[in-house]
């Protein structure tokens, strides 16, 4: 009975927007707005791009239970598209990003149609194999320039108004993109659609027997996730003025898995925390003689063996009010 009251109470708080989650998001946003005065904007933008990428990935694994091991294809593939249309065709940056997102969504549709035919481990292997195909295409197609990648991509002027060549302008643009993407994911997760996805994750046969065409739901989630990963990749291409093979390798797909796992799969903020940590760690390791993949691999192993809830997941688990998921 008391449980019941508390739950209702909690729901009420969420409804009126006073939930700690919203407060946390607000505080995070404030921090992000002020951050470039304390830290390098390029570093922060890298974190934001990967955070959006990880959030997009988490939409699948955390809320639909699908492990894609091929998300680098959307991230890196979209980076090539953005770089190409902006540099070679001279498109404005906003159209470059739209093109990148759209192509990634289209690739997501194709991947999804093929991979959704199998579940679990097979799904992971199929997405991995398909993304490897994209890697070989990126290696061979003329417009991607093979090992060199597309270099010297101009950042251009956003909406003809904002000169993205200015670091702070670029930073706030990236922040806006991240916030928009994150808000979309937040809305999706809390929408009826998101509830169906969770039902599929918990028990797909039951969802089917309730009359849901689960494949459709999974496909839509996959396309949405791929599009947002593409948006992140396109943004990264503008930030670094570069699209390269690194972003389409399967190691990159693994990296986004790690960010999400480390932060907490199925939590909204986990991927952001994970991306921040991994990017920070990698830039720190770059200045030491420690081999990055070995350290990353060790974190992977430790996370999987001892720490499967991730940082945010573990915090939520230890919080007294478990309704706060």
């Amino acid at each position, binding site marked *: 009975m008391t449980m019941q009251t508390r739950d209702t109470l909690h729901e009420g708080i969420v409804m009126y927007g006073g939930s700690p989650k919203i407060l946390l998001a607000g505080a995070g946003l404030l921090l992000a707005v002020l951050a470039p005065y304390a830290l390098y904007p390029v570093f922060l933008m890298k974190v934001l791009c990967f955070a959006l990428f990880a959030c997009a990935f988490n939409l699948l694994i955390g809320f639909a239970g699908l*492990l894609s091991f091929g998300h680098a294809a959307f991230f890196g593939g979209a980076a090539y598209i953005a770089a190409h249309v902006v540099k070679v065709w001279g498109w404005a940056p906003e159209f470059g990003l739209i093109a990148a997102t759209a192509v990634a969504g289209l690739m997501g549709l194709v991947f999804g149609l*093929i991979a959704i035919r199998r579940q679990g481990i097979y799904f992971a292997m199929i997405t991995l194999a398909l993304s490897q195909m994209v890697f070989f295409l990126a290696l061979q197609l003329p417009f991607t320039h093979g090992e060199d990648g597309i270099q010297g991509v101009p950042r251009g002027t956003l909406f003809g108004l904002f000169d993205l060549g200015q670091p702070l302008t670029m930073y706030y643009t990236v922040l806006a993109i991240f916030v928009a993407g994150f808000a979309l994911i937040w809305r999706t997760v809390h929408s009826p659609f998101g509830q169906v996805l969770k039902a599929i994750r918990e028990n797909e046969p039951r969802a089917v027997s309730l009359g849901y065409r689960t494949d459709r739901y999974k496909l839509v989630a996959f396309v949405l996730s791929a599009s947002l990963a593409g948006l992140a990749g396109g943004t990264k291409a503008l930030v670094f003025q570069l699209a390269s093979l690194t972003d389409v390798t399967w190691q990159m797909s693994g990296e986004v898995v790690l960010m999400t796992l480390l932060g907490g799969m199925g939590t909204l903020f986990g991927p952001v925390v994970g991306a921040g940590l991994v990017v920070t760690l990698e830039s720190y390791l770059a200045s030491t003689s420690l081999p990055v993949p070995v350290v990353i691999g060790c974190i992977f192993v430790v996370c999987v063996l001892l720490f499967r809830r991730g940082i945010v997941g573990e915090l939520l688990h230890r919080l007294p009010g478990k309704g706060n998921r």
Partner: protein
Amino acid sequence: MSHLFGIPPQALFGQLLLGLINGSFYALLSLGLAVIFGMLNVVNMAHGALYMVGAFVAWLLLTYLGVGYWGALVLAPLAVGAVGLVLERTMLRRLYKVDHLYGLLLTFGLALIFEGAFRHQYGVSGQPYPIPELLKGGINLGFMYLPTYRGWVVAASLLVCLGTWFAIERTKLGAYLRAATENPTLVQAFGINVPVMVSLTYGFGVALAGLAGVLAAPIYQVSPLMGSNLIIVVFAVVVIGGMGSILGAIVTGLGLGLLEGLAKVFYPEASNIVVFVIMAVVLMVKPAGLFGRER
């Protein structure tokens, strides 16, 4: 007939032989993956890294201890198998009760560690490994020149694959393995130590990868990333063949190697992606794979 479809026969057969060799490696590696998957429900992402470790063990044996090819052919798979036993006992074992995806993630982390460590130590460039004296030279088959070592690789892989097939499908030990794959609890209730069997299965599966690594050493150079991209193709092979059948893994591996060889002759640009395209087509037509059963 000096030209087949406008291609000189030497070039055609040459590429087909290369395809057959690649196919032999696909078969050996996908066989190991299938055996491990059947028993442990783990997609061993570290398989390519352990293939590389096999090649490196051979190279290290030769460079530092003067142990040659034939010794390495026995010792390297044993070493890789021992590494596998340790990994299974200390890590994989803890994950059997949670979602199978964690096994995949763990072995992915292990692959990063192995590849990263060898790269750190030996750099990305390959180390040459000599062809053993006995297998140098070649044979003129009339329609093509067959380098002896390449013929040996195909023959040896086939022999090992068929031997494994025989051991699993036709022997008592294989019956235990098949039974334990189906219902480990009951097999244990008959008095068989299933956890030990599971460890040995993993050890055996990765030992096959190690063996493939030794066989590959004289053909490709020994380099830390030699297994990194190869293993993804092998995953595609496994998806195409379906995990259900040992013979399926062998046939699919060889067949796709040959197809890749043909692609190199007729449409070289597509040779890297032909396996993935076939995978997509097979999934659309027969989601369980060519030889697979729906699970």
